[in-house]
């Protein structure tokens, strides 16, 4: 797809886990939320979002339940599991290390 705001996989996982930290959400809302929080900078493509959600679910980091959405339709709500919380901490730490390192390089030059 090669768009500038296309997210590398690991980062997308981190964003999804972080977005789900306060509350359970369905896929559409997760995409919207990321877009909103990033000030419309990050646009998550469906082609990346759903494979990522299913992969996280397979790994047991998020759990899915079917529930009524705000519009009254059945939707698949994802929520963070205990293991997912641990994973989020790990990935956040990772991200901080990585972005700090990148910041240093960018500031130097």
């Amino acid at each position: 797809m090669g768009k500038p705001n296309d997210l590398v996989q690991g980062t997308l996982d981190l964003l999804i886990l972080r977005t789900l930290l306060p509350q359970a959400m369905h896929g559409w809302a997760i995409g919207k939320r990321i877009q909103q929080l990033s000030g419309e900078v990050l646009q998550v493509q469906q082609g990346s979002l759903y494979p990522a959600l299913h992969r996280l679910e397979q790994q047991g980091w998020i759990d899915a339940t079917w529930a009524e959405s705000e519009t009254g339709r059945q939707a698949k709500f994802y929520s963070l599991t205990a293991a997912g919380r641990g994973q989020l901490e790990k990935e956040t730490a990772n991200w901080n290390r990585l972005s700090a390192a990148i910041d240093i390089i960018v500031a130097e030059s």
Partner: protein
Amino acid sequence: MLWLMQLRMRMQMLFKRGQAAARLDEELRFHLDQQIAENLAAGMNPEEARFAALRAFGNPALLREQTRATWSWTWLELLWRDVCFGVRTLRHTPGFTAIAVLVMALGIGANVAMFTVVRSVLLKPLPFQDPDRLVRVFEHTNDGEFSFNIVAGGVYAEWRKQNHSFSDLALLGEGEFNLSGAGGQLPEFAHGANCTWNLFSTLGVKPALGRDFTAADDQPSANGTVVLSWGLWKRRFGGDPAILNQTIHLNRQSYTVIGIMPAWFAYPDASTQLWTPVYHDKPASVMSSLQDHEFPVIGRLGPGVTAEQGRAELSVIVRRLHDQHRNVALISKAAEVRPLLEDIVGGVKQPLYVLLAATGCVLLIACLNVANLLVARAAARRKELAIRAALGGGRLRLLRERLMESFLLSAAGGALGLLLAYGAVQWLVHSRHDLSRVEAIHVDGVVALFTVGLIVLCALFAGLIASWTARDKRLLASLQDSARSSSGGQAHTGLRRALLAAEVGLTVVLLVTAGLLLKSYARLRSSDMGCATQNVLTMRLALFGGRYGEPAQLVNFYTALLARVRALPGVEAAGFVQAVPGQGYWGDNGFTIAEHPPLPQGQAQFAIFRYADPDYFAAMRIPILRGRSFDPALKLGLAREVVVSKSFADAYFPGEDPLGKHLRSGVTEVYTIVGVVGDTRYAVSEDPKPMQYYPLLEGAGVENNGTLVIRSSHDVEQLALPVQRIVQELDHDLPVSDVLTMEQLLGKSTVDASFDATLLTAFATLSLLLAGVGLFGVLSYVVAQRTSEIGIRMALGAQREQVLRSVLLDGLRPALLGLALGLAVSVGVARLIRSMLYGTQPLDPGVFAAVAATLLLVAALACVVPAWRASRLDPMQALRTE
């Protein structure tokens, strides 16, 4: 916790995959609808909102694919898809599939069956304790010519006393038992064994019920004791443990049942129904004789002792005995040992391995044939495959598909083959009781594993050969090829021809082997026994106990029996003999000729002996060449006459008239030679040996068993019941056994040869059929490929005969190449099976010529139809086919 969730997830993905897929669709639809709703809220009209949402959404099929790719078990799903695809393509061509599966089933089935037999009989260790320590012990013959002679009782006793190499030595002999009826039961004849008390402990086996023999049981003065086989106990005594410590009557003597052996125990063979102590049963003179070789002996090697050390020590002991007793003529000078397993299965080893090799060839041919069929399919689907490759179908993926197809064929064939093998093994076990260790043959887990292995091997073999030809790097060429396929697929047919040549070669080897064995069998069946074999009935009797203690009582019984049998309507002649031709060696004895100078010390001459009644020769139509038969008026001590066979006369009276000469047998008795009769064979496959016949009516006492022969002009089997009734009337406690016509008796003794020859012929015929079908298939394909080429040739003036010849030669070339290869290999193989042949040279020109002719005929038949079809082509039609 995490692993539990992952496991739950995996189970869900495995078992609720359909539901998960539906959920995914639902989830994506929800997303789309949300987008549409948002677009509507932004003020678009419904249609516009919908299109914008779809545009943003992208390709839903791709998204679904990508999402599903993250699920677990995806590899399984892909595999399943390959299987479905394979099944679907195979279903499109049911004829091809059925043939390929059947071919594989026959190949795999035959192999699994033979593997089961070979493994159970030859490879599995004997079911005894530390079976590799058990050996069979032999004496050499006195002249040293034969190293595997049975052992004399006296030698065994000395061995057991003096040796230090064996932890124990046990002796056993065949026993024939009349098991008396009790409580209205009929008497029964039972095969059994006389054994030393330590037989079971030497083997390391304990009775399932009751106790083993003790040394005290195994003495002449002890009370009779008997151990029963599980089968006899179940059948005759209803499996009632109360039989223990009860008395039964064997040969009219009392024996106490002390034990029951486990159901699996079968030694010396599966027909052994009971065991009794040998020192109790046999006369002391036999047990202490140093030269009457009567008994098989087995031994358990002591810890750390090799078989060679054991053999050396026993050799030293018997050599010393020989030197100490110079006056006893037939003591041997050396001992021999061999592993017990080899001793039990030695006779069937080579035939079984030959059959296994034959089934291996059949499977190879089957695989080659299936590979050939797959290659043909690949060739027919070349364009399809090229298009798929051009559209981005991965090479690996296409290869996987091809392998899957061949795997499906092999798996279906293997499953069917396993069933076939199971049936074949059941049939074998039921029809071949005489096979060593037949009781050990079972289809088990290892066999199933072997089948799976074979399936994978066949699938890879056939599949890889097929894919190797299909691997076409010149995609474009394949696609263009079809424009004018005048030389289409020449490269493909090269490999197929090579496969065909290999197939034909293997078939030739099988045909030659089968031909040689068939010829041997025919020779065996037509070998002249030297006596009547049509309409002759035989049955065995054994007279035991107080009623026959005196020679006069025996003679009276025989006289009365023969007189009554001869009086039966339909009986042309009847006689009684110790053993009829074909019934085995039975026994020999040493003799001297009164008119000849005494033999040097330490030398002896011996020949087979038989007891016979005066009318035996007439009853069996054994010609009396000179002199006469016994005088029926002479009985008991007066009957001092002997009849000898022609080869006896030739061997011991060269250039002399044997009539009137005297044989001294044993110590005192002197017998006058009154007649010379024709030679007979004691076994079908053995040449006639010198034989002496002594008068039955002498009633010498020890010879209390033998064969009653009855000859009739027709339907002699109808006489079986009346004769048995006469026996019952004379002695209600006397069982009759082995009621067989001469033809059945001889057939039984050639069942091995018949079995091997029949099976190999079946395998060879199957291969021939496969090779013929393969040849036909390839040539038909080649002709179809060359249709337009042939059309052009004909249009340019080629004669139909030329086309016919060219196509015929095209097909016959691989057949001829295969034939030449096969004949060359057969020469080597025939030498290997030399020992299985009887009266047939390994390089029998008749067999080789017949095989070559058969093969050429089949090849020509297979080629002639496609060739003829090619020559009938209408050039215009042929050119238009593209």
